[in-house]
């Protein structure tokens, strides 16, 4: 969480998995893609070749990606252990006002979600971004 002029903000990295726009708190990520080379899927996959990896397409109930070539990896620190999450495309690093633009899941969804890491929603421009806690073991 980042304090900015009295407001509490949340830095979130957005990413796409199929049609779903998702986000994770930036502080959960061990390594953010910071250059075009590092942002390339091949570089990510090679760099973290030995990590245990989970495919978020499976978590989201989607069929396997037609090709793994263009996919990217989010590396999360889970209590000292690094875990890789395969996503289709990394989006933007955004900063949102927690009081105005971040919400918990509506009660109905909280009860019915099958993906337990899903915890909230934030508004970014015209989009709602679904927030996951990837440090939490699903």
């Amino acid at each position, binding site marked *: 969480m980042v304090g900015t002029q009295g407001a509490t903000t949340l830095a979130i990295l957005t990413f796409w998995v199929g049609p779903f726009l998702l986000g994770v708190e930036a502080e959960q990520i061990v390594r953010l893609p910071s250059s075009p080379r590092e942002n390339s899927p091949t570089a990510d996959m090679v760099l973290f070749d030995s990590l245990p990896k989970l495919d978020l397409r499976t978590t989201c109930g989607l069929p396997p990606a037609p090709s793994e070539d263009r996919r990217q990896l989010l590396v999360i620190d889970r209590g000292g252990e690094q875990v890789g999450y395969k996503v289709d495309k990394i989006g933007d690093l955004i900063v949102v006002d927690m009081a105005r633009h971040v919400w918990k899941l509506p009660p109905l969804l909280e009860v019915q979600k099958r993906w337990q890491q899903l915890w909230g929603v934030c*508004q970014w421009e015209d989009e709602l971004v679904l927030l996951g806690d990837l440090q939490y073991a699903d």
Partner: protein
Amino acid sequence: MPDFPNGPGKSILEQVRRAQQNHLAPDAINSHQQQYLTFRLNEEWYGLSVHHLVEVLPMPKITRVPSVPNHILGVMNFRGQVVSAIDLKKIFVLEQSLQTTDPAVVVVEHGEMRTGLLVDEIGDLIGLSPADWSEEPITTARAQRSFFEGTAHWGEILLSIIKLEGIFHSDALHSQRG
């Protein structure tokens, strides 16, 4: 009966607000009548008490959510609050129509929870008195009887009157299947 070529628009919303205000001041209206919003799913018409009604929206943007039962359409931003949107047809086990020209979302409040209900078309705001009512629901499926208070005549149309608490407490809504 309905005449909203561009969606429900302001007129129905103003009617709803007036009806809700009147409901709070029952002496001002015929106390034997209650106000209902009518809407259509496929070929069937339904009535919902304005008691539960918060707003009627022309089709808003709904964001899909992964790994939820298929009666949950997703989430939407309603007046700065995120609410779930559900597909009533899935709850009522109705066929999915291929094309809907005037879909809308009816935002309802049950307890402290607001939820959007997707409907095919908004009808009108009508007053119903006890004489218009029958407690026998149209549906014969036992599992769905708890969703309805009964039926009422609206001109030549038979309305199924929705019992919101029956839906919100139902296994169909809380099932994780689908």
